[in-house]
């Protein structure tokens, strides 16, 4: 073996010493100029003043004093002591004080008590719930239906169950507040199109298609949805459903239809806007409605194909983490459905009355009627606003008071001014 040359050994020795030094030397720290001393921290804690938990609300704010209703809110309603004809509740089919509905609810109360004491997953599923779900599915001629215990939570839980971060939702500007909350909870990209304007929607869809072609891999996993309402709460008109279905197949987007106002109102048998236009039920991916309007109960439901609806049983937050609907309200809803099925004439009667009221309200000086003629909920708007929302609201409130004095109950439509995305102008709701 050759002995290594001397310089080689010395070099290696120096390298080893260098490594040892590096291993044991202290790490180099940047001088910590941002670390606070304990005294400074305590000073900061003392100085900091948070805002008050709630800002003070002036006593004249219209929303603090509610009108007090004594007695049942049926066709005649006692507001603030005066008995009036009720033009302000959403009791479209008059089922609120129907004797049959009340009887069934009473029978259910005697059998099941009041509350369910549990969510659906933990012994909160009653046979009435299962019956209501199958009846709703049969009524709407879909495969399956799922019930929620509160109308607001229905669409607000359904949207985030399917649409996640990165997906795209096209929604009408006039969408109601619960849809907006559902969109917010889903964290997807939201694209608004002008109210009932199919050209605007098509323009947005075309833009999206161009983007997709640039990035096909991403497009293959991005889900796209259109969310519309059957009868809009904020403007009382109907969405153009056949055009939407054409757009659906052309651009491959799914449709979620919110039918809170149109369920039990539109269509020959009250099945909603799909029956009104004669659209095939299978073309709509999800129909969601609440039972607090025509059906005169509490809660909401979604119906559609099992492929779509079954997913909500594990991922609908308002379904899994909340107590189920009290059985007497479910029984009331079943009986209401029975009445709707037995007697389809009530829908024609309702429609006639709506048209009558609509034509009677035309031509009132300085108030214009917003909405289609067969909508059961109309808006009366000031023709010329004064420019200030507060004065407009005060004027409308005086109109309401005037009507109350003459025993007709109307109400100012309520909106949360700071939260709505597209705030509708002040109006009355009838």
């Amino acid at each position, binding site marked *: 073996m050759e002995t290594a040359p001397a310089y080689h050994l010395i070099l290696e020795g120096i390298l080893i010493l260098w490594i040892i030094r590096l291993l044991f030397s202290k790490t180099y720290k940047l001088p910590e100029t941002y670390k606070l001393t304990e005294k400074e921290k305590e000073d900061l*804690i003392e100085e900091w003043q948070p805002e008050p938990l709630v800002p003070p609300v002036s006593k004249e704010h219209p929303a603090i004093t509610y009108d007090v209703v004594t007695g*049942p809110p049926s066709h005649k309603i006692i507001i603030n002591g005066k008995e009036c004809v009720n033009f302000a509740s959403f009791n479209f089919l008059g089922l609120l004080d129907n004797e049959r509905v009340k009887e069934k609810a009473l029978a259910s109360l005697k059998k099941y*008590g009041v509350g369910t004491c*549990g969510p659906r997953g933990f012994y909160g*599923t009653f046979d009435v719930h299962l019956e209501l779900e199958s009846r709703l599915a049969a009524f709407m001629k879909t495969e399956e239906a799922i019930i929620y215990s509160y109308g607001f939570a229905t669409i607000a839980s359904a949207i985030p169950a399917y649409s996640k971060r990165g997906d795209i939702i096209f929604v009408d500007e006039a969408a109601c507040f619960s849809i907006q909350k559902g969109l917010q909870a889903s964290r997807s990209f939201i694209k608004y199109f002008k109210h009932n304007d199919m050209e605007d929607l098509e323009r947005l869809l075309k833009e999206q298609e161009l983007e997709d072609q640039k990035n096909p891999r991403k497009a293959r996993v991005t889900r796209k949805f259109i969310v519309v309402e059957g009868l809009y709460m904020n403007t009382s008109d109907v969405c153009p459903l056949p055009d939407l279905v054409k757009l659906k197949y052309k651009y*491959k987007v*799914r449709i979620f239809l919110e039918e809170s106002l149109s369920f039990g109102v539109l269509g020959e048998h009250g099945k909603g806007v799909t029956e009104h236009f004669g659209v095939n039920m299978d073309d709509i991916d999800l129909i969601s409605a609440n039972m607090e309007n025509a059906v005169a109960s509490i809660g909401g439901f979604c119906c559609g194909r099992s492929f779509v609806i079954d997913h909500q049983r594990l991922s609908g937050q308002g379904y899994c983490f909340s107590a189920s609907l009290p059985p*007497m309200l479910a029984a009331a809803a079943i009986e209401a459905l029975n009445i709707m099925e037995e007697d389809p004439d009530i829908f024609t009667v309702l429609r006639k009355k709506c048209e009558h009221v609509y034509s009677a309200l035309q031509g009132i000086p300085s108030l214009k009627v917003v909405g289609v003629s067969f909508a059961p909920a109309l808006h009366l708007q000031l023709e010329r606003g004064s420019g200030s929302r507060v004065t407009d609201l005060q004027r409308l409130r005086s109109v309401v008071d005037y009507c109350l004095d003459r025993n007709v109950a109307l109400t100012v439509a309520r909106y949360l001014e700071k*939260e709505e995305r597209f705030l509708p102008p002040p109006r009355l709701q009838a």
Partner: protein
Amino acid sequence: MKKSSPQSGVHPRQNKQESFEQPPMYVAVMTYVGYGLVTLFGYFRDFLRAVGLEKCHVAQEREEQKDFTPLYQDFENFYTRNLYMRVRDNWNRPICSLPGPVFDLMERVSDDYNWTFRFTGKSIPNVINMGSYNYLGFAENNADFLKSVADRLQRYGAAVCSTRQETGNLSLHEELEQLVAEFLGVESSMTFGMGFATNSMNIPALVGKGCLIISDELNHTSLILGARLSGATIRVFKHNNMCSLEKMLKEAVCSGQPRTRRPWRKILIMVEGIYSMEGSVVRLPEIIALKEKYKAYLYLDEAHSIGAVGPTGRGVTELFNVNPGDVDVMMGTFTKSFGAAGGYIAGKKELVDYLRSQSHSAVYASAMSPAITEQIIRAIKCITGKDGSTEGIRRIRQLAENTRYFRARLKEMGFIIYGGDESPVVPLLLYMPAKVVAFAREMLARKIGVVVVGFPATPITEARARFCVSAAHTRDMLNQVLHHLNEVGDNLCLKFSRRKHPSRPDPCEETNS
């Protein structure tokens, strides 16, 4: 392994009672092995389905829509398809009677391993109910008790068909809110139609961008959803750990908002009274001390604790002898102890007035049904004794006694249970996935209905069965349940506790020492 607690002003009873014992090491290992095996099987079955050897039961997309973007990603549903489906007969069990201390279950069978169920038409009568949230036994259908509710239903109908701000504000609602405020000892309160929605619709009204929410690790989904919808920054502190909370508060006040360093507009601490999965009770006096020091606001969600703890059922504020005015926002639900539905928020008059005008629920969601309102009124009158009877106090005492007895016997048998001794929510740890399922099915065969929870509602190694003790349970029922638990525990080797417990401790001695 007991939890450590800081020295400041701690209620002397607290230290002794919360315990979160860790299991022996082999249990954790076997749990992971169990999940691993099931996952491997899952992949294998997916492969068989893809190849066509196994029939695919999963619902399919429409033919016309096959070229749309798929609605669900394959891996999102992996857990549902392969793990949940096989054992899902333990959840969503339908009942056909009232959810009292005993109930009737509908018998359902499956011919294809739980993909579809079929009802035989028969029912399983008199199953002891250890799963419903019926703490004070108000889930009852006694005609006398329910007379006023039936009257209201007859008079008002089932619902209101309008929002609170429009024509939905009945005089009945105002009466209820008055009663709730008196009951809790605060200035005023406001009620809502759904407990879940109470949180998700009111937290955004209280905090917004530029505010900080510090919430407990194990908070309920409704609190988390409300916090996310509000737009505020959210930070999470370790469950019931006051050191973690203090550190976070100090850091928040000193450093301010993340990038701009501006001071926070408000800081809101969100905690629950009793945590439904752990059974642990919040450390209220310590949190209030911290809140005063750092000028934060406290949001207390008493969904499970209102009516269920405290000498007169007024919740954790009474349990710890704290002034209810110290808690800024008291929230609770009526579903559990009052046997109805809905929620409330209570506090100072300014807070409630603000919510009356700004809450999403008051403006857009329908008001509470009149019959349900009457039930809550009746329940509160019963608890406070306003209806002239001592039924309320009797139920509260019965609940406390049942809770103590049940917990003491379980500990003595050698099970690991979590939570404080006053909490009527008793989680019994099972750990391994197969045992969870076997436990639930075995208890049903012995006519006891239990609730089991596993991943993802709990951490992966801590699957458990959760018992809810009720004032309506008699000593005999509890003894029957305990007897069967003993047998099943021996058969399935569930007694993991390594602590020595004196046999038959007197429940009174434990709490007074």
